[in-house]
């Protein structure tokens, strides 16, 4: 018996903390999710949309918020501070101090009556004479609106309970008022509430306290806090949001007028001598905010003032190009100051053109792209947990252990370690979860509970009683269509016994209401008209299940994605269409039948394709969690691209790490290694895959439950810049190999000159390859610094388009500049030229600032060439039935929130096969995959969908029309003896079937159908749709 505790404390409940909690809880670890704020969600809850897909941030995270709040094994502890931690890895005692919120969390229903009666919420402005009553600025809207002293941070807040602000509450300050207490029918207000000390026993801790937005007041020249129309990016995010201070209307603070010209100033609080790091996300969020703002105001002018546009992740460069095409101006100047015109409150910015002319322009609104600072809790957390911070105040981690703190058993994730984007945070959090799972592998399922649903009510014989619930989705639906009118219409439909609307149907408050209505009105079918079943159907199914209905007695009308979003400017037509969609859904609901999910047993072994860094690190993580891993590699040697890296920017030695890694992989009993492998087929489905490989001409069959695709990528061998024609033109990897072998630049050249020119973006960011390969800038800086170290007299010129040394790599870029490495910008449309003039090599480029062609005599040209996907990806993708992106890299399920999953269950993605990335990023990604797989394979069986194909044997004559079209190869032809003769028929493998309906569409005999999508159901829907 282990003396470890099968529980984990997650500190910080932003999107990272939420992800880690879900991964852990789904793998059998009891989770305590703590946050200092009154509710969970972090900064992502404040965002309007997310780049580069422009998905609504709240819509993508709301299902997770709800999932967490409903998860039996996640205990949410909000409004809490960490007091101390004692113990050792596997068995810590954490003491928490929960601040009084003066509201009983168990009693409060989040109805909001108290908020409406609080006198402090009614103060319009500070100038009403009464000095004692000042409006309270709303933190969630970053000071752009006011709130009451009793408040709920945001509509979807979890836990959905009110909090009293003791700094402002009149009753708590001088004993008068108490209006909220009087109005609270749940009797939840408790002014006597005291601080609560909570002691928790956990095996591990994950710290993800997030970041702080840079305080723009520290840069007084921008006038933030002084000029009303200078706002921060987060404030603008709130302005754009439907749930924001101006209900999604893009207006400026001073006069509430619509701006016609908006300027975005980049690098506010980043990339200066005090904060020599890049905040990573600002270039893209400014681009996103500009795109969205232009969607709101069609003739809006957006200028983004930048130094380098850092669009370095998947889809970002394409997004940036799209922004440029839509007319957003990118102006390369770091802006020193903003001036206000007193009369109009407009703002004036002076900037430079590429040829160095100074211009000035007037704007109605200026948005400061404020950088990411370490969390205000960083120092305190570091002190209390005994972990170390780096020079910038972020948590220090190592390249090879990106989620480990300096203390064993304490893991870290997200922006606590370095500024990062949402997918990287989510990945990081899953990676931290994976480390916890490895540490507590013997103690899973020891402290967890099982969710019991009430016995399902038998509705087969009952007359349909349908409830219709219509969601406003903030302004997404309600801002376009007339929701009350839709509700009234729904009430007129036959079998509808109840209809109502809600601002957010997915909020806990609303879902509780649905359950209540099911009981009140004895509903036996439920229709929700809202966003999309893609994200929200599981939630509502689960809700009605809790109310005793079979989960398939639910139907969703997609009145946002397929209605109000596409008919944004036609409110009347949108309302009419929404009514149609609701009617169709109601008609379907009448015919709904209860369905049951089947359980299938699963194979708990994992196949890892590719034994490079990602493959090996992932295999080890899974092996540590106790899973058997088949690690296959097409080459003879292990290590992949890592074999070609000899040193890192921070001085670490990857070769040493690789040697250890290979050693560990070879010695691990849980890992079965095959090299020289060719895959001949992959068959099966999540939990039950069967893969045939050929190892040294011998066939081997492997059965496994999940797959990791870690096949890597390769360096592009350039066709440009005389590569291959002149031996003095080489790639960065070739240079690195030479430098690692103690080659001294300049020594072998004949004269005294020792000039080296590096050219960035080779075979990239152009019409052939649209993307940015993310790591080449840092790679060039790394190699240039190495050369300078070997030979300080060498002259190195780096010709670039944007230096994309994101995060802490910025510091190395500065170091390179300080070491005298010369950086010069070339234009996309005037690429540099390599010239060989009588054996004298030179590079010529056009310098836009100097307005001249500049010729650099050189001894060596180094090309920072692209990282490209393997062409073989196509074949593998077909075998796996997973998609590739337009560049040929594997495409994940969702760019923000499912960055390591494929849309096909049971198959996951790590390393360069996904996109170019650094070593630490590959390691976190592969560890994240290990956590995701852990969550699936830690159970013995898996539940299938209820809506799968079913054969009606008496109708089927075995014509086999359905067999070939089935994309999942789920149907087989069988023969049996019936009444003395041979009866042909087909059979469906339910584990493979996805319920897509192709079989049903091809069958001429009505011999096969998909449950929940029967022909008569669909016909009824079509009839309803055609109704006038």
């Amino acid at each position, binding site marked *: 018996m282990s003396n470890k505790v099968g529980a984990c404390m997650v500190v910080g409940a932003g999107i990272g903390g939420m992800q880690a909690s879900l991964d852990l809880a789904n793998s059998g670890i009891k989770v305590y999710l703590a946050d200092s704020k009154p509710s969970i969600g972090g900064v992502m809850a404040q965002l309007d949309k997310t780049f580069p897909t422009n998905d609504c941030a709240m819509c993508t995270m709301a299902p997770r918020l709800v999932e967490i709040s409903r998860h039996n094994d996640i205990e949410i502890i909000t409004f809490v501070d960490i007091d101390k931690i004692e113990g050792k890895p596997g068995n810590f005692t954490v003491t928490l101090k929960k601040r009084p919120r003066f509201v009983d969390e168990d009693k409060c229903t989040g109805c909001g009556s108290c908020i409406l009666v609080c006198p402090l919420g009614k103060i319009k402005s500070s100038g009403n004479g009464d000095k004692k009553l000042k409006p309270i600025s709303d933190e969630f809207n970053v000071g752009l609106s006011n709130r009451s002293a009793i408040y709920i941070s945001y509509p979807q807040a979890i836990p959905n309970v009110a909090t009293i602000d003791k700094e402002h509450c009149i009753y708590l300050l001088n004993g008068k008022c108490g209006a909220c207490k009087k109005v609270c029918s749940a009797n939840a207000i408790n002014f006597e509430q005291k601080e609560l000390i909570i002691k928790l026993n956990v095996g591990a801790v994950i710290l993800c306290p997030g970041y702080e937005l840079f305080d723009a007041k520290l840069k007084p*020249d921008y006038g933030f806090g002084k000029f009303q129309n200078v706002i921060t990016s987060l404030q603008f995010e709130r302005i754009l949001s439907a749930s924001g201070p101006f209900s999604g209307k893009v207006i400026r603070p001073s006069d509430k007028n619509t701006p016609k010209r908006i300027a975005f100033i980049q*690098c506010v609080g980043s*990339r*200066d*001598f005090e904060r020599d790091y890049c905040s990573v996300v600002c270039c893209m969020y400014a681009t996103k905010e500009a795109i969205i703002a232009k969607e709101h105001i069609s003739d809006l002018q957006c200028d983004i003032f930048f*130094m380098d546009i850092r669009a370095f992740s998947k889809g970002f460069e394409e997004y940036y190009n799209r922004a440029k095409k839509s007319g957003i101006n990118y102006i*390369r*100047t*770091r*802006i*020193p*100051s903003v001036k206000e015109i007193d009369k109009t409150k407009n703002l004036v910015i*002076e*900037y*430079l*053109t*590429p*040829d*160095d*002319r*100074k211009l000035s322009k007037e704007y109605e609104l200026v948005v400061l792209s404020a950088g990411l600072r370490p969390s205000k809790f960083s120092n305190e957390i570091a002190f209390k947990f005994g972990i170390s911070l780096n020079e910038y105040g972020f948590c220090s981690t190592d390249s090879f252990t990106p989620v480990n703190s300096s203390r064993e058993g304490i893991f870290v994730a997200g922006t606590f370690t370095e500024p990062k984007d949402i997918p990287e945070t989510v990945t990081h959090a899953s990676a931290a979860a994976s480390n916890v799972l490895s540490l507590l592998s013997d103690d899973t399922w020891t402290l967890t509970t099982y969710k019991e649903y009430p016995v399902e009510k038998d509705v087969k014989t009952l007359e349909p009683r349908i409830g219709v619930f219509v969601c406003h989705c903030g302004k997404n639906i309600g801002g376009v269509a007339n929701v009350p009118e839709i509700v009234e219409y729904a009430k007129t439909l036959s079998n509808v016994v109840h209809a109502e609307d809600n601002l957010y149907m997915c909020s806990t408050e609303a879902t509780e209401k649905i359950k209540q209505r099911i009981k009140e009105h004895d509903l036996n079918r439920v229709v929700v008209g809202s966003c999309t079943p893609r994200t929200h159907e599981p939630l509502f199914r689960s809700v009605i299940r809790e109310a005793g209905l079979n989960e398939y007695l639910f139907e969703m009308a997609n009145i946002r994605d397929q209605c109000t979003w596409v008919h944004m400017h036609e409110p009347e037509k949108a309302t009419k269409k929404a009514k149609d969609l609701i009617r169709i859904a109601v008609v379907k609901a009448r015919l709904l039948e209860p369905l049951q999910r089947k359980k299938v047993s699963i194979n708990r072994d994992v196949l890892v394709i590719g034994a490079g860094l990602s493959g090996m690190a992932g295999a080890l993580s899974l092996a540590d969690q106790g899973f058997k891993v088949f690690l296959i590699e097409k080459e003879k040697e292990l290590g992949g691209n890592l074999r070609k890296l000899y040193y890192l920017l921070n001085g670490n030695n990857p070769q040493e790490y690789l040697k250890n890694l290979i050693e560990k992989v070879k010695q691990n009993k849980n890992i079965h290694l095959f090299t020289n492998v060719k895959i001949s087929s992959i068959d099966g489905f999540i939990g039950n895959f069967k893969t045939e490989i050929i190892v040294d001409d011998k066939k081997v069959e492997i059965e496994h439950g999940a797959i990791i695709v870690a096949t890597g990528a390769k360096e592009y061998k350039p066709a440009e810049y*005389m590569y291959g024609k002149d031996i003095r033109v080489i790639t960065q990897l070739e240079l690195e190999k030479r430098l690692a072998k103690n080659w001294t630049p300049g020594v072998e050249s004949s004269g005294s000159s020792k*000039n080296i020119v590096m050219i960035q973006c080779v075979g990239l960011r152009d019409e052939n390859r649209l993307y940015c390969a993310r790591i080449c800038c840092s790679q060039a800086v790394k190699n240039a610094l190495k050369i300078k170290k070997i030979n300080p007299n060498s*002259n190195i*010129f780096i010709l670039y388009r944007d*230096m994309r040394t994101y995060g802490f790599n910025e510091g190395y*870029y*500065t170091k390179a*500049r*300080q*070491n*005298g490495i*010369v*950086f*010069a*910008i070339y234009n996309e449309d005037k690429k540099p*030229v*390599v*010239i*060989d*003039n009588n054996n004298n090599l030179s590079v*010529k480029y056009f*310098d836009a*600032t*100097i*307005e*001249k*062609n*500049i*010729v*650099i*005599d050189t001894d060596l040209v180094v090309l920072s060439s692209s990282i490209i996907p393997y062409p073989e990806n196509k074949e593998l993708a077909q075998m796996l039935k997973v998609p590739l992106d337009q560049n040929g890299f594997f495409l994940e399920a969702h760019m923000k929130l499912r960055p390591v999953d494929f849309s096909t269950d049971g198959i996951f993605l790590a390393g360069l096969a996904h996109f170019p990335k650094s070593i630490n990023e590959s390691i976190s990604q592969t560890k994240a995959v290990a956590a995701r797989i852990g969550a699936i394979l830690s159970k013995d069986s898996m539940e299938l969908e209820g809506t799968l194909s079913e054969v009606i044997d008496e109708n089927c004559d075995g014509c086999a029309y359905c067999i070939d079209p089935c994309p999942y190869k789920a149907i087989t032809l069988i023969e049996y003896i019936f009444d003395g003769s041979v009866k042909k028929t087909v059979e469906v493998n339910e584990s493979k079937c996805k319920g897509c309906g192709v079989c049903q569409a091809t069958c001429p005999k009505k011999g096969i159908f998909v449950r929940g999508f029967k022909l008569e159901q669909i016909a009824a829907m079509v009839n309803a749709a055609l109704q006038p």
Partner: protein
Amino acid sequence: MSNNSVLKDEIKVDPGLLSEVRKYGKFDVKGCYNCGTCTVSCALTKDSASFPRKIIRYVDMGLKKLLKSSLEPWLCYYCGDCSTTCPRQTEPGEAMMTLRRYLTSQYDWTGLASKFYLSKVWEIGTLILVGGLVLVLAVLFHGPIVTSRVELNTFAPVNLVHSFDMILLFTLTFFVLSGAFRMYWFTMVKGNKVRMPFSLCFTEFKTLILHASTQLRFRECTDKTRWIKHFLLVSGYVLMFTMIVGFLWWFQTDNIYPIYHPQRWIGYYATVVLVIFTIEILISRFKKIEQIHKFSELSDWLFPILLLLTAISGILVHIFRYLGLPLSTYYIYVIHLIIAVPMLVVEVPFGKWAHLYYRPLAIYFQAVREKALQQQMDKGAVPTSGT
């Protein structure tokens, strides 16, 4: 990729330029990431002459020809705004200062300017040498020493001193003019694509006079007080210089004029502003009070120190004469010359003093350039590739 593709409008990189420039003072552009903050902050930058960013790029990239043909370093009055706003703390203002030293040495054909800037031994040695020479001349050629009362004109006859002044004046003017000509050659002839109609040199001459006498453009800088201080200092200097070179017979007399006489007023005014503002500069440099005084090379110290000593020794001559102390007056007079003459010989053509003519010349040349460009554009031929 072939030889044919070599365009005419191209320029070769000289990687050694930065280290060459750096010998002349602080030029810390290494941390610079070319963001443009400095140029945006600069109140004096114009479309036709933008700085500091572009000029710093010339040095960073090793474009010596372009640097030598640039007037921009002289158009900068060094208010220090660029240095305070620089997000990298690279001190672009000081870099421009260093470039003025570098360019002074480039305009000078003797190579002495370079020697003085690069070697303390050369600079101080030359000052001592010239001072010694003045002492020898004074010992050899002084007139009778009257001890009964102060007869300075007997000890140092005005005619003799005036002749010496004239020799000095012509010699220095020769160096000044040759330097100015080389400046013209580099910036207006060799490095210029626009044809300069000679007539413009006459019509724009007023610019030279205006800016030489008023430093008017300094007023456009954010901090206006610096212009006032500088203007007063220059006014004192110019007055004193004019009196000594042009009106020595009037200025250096043994007659004691009444207190209301302009000769005394001019003298008092000039020496007082010289003393006050050289001391102000020295204190600011010592305590690094103002941005522009944070970095001080030897040449930055020597000019105000020598100026202050000249003024103080001049005042002492005046005081001793009034007190009727003959020997003290004669000694201090010789000391006065021992300070003033080397200062002029070293600083005027080869040192910091040179900005008195290079800067207004640059403004003047720039005006000619702009007018010439304007004329060409009016004719429809746009020579530059400006967008």
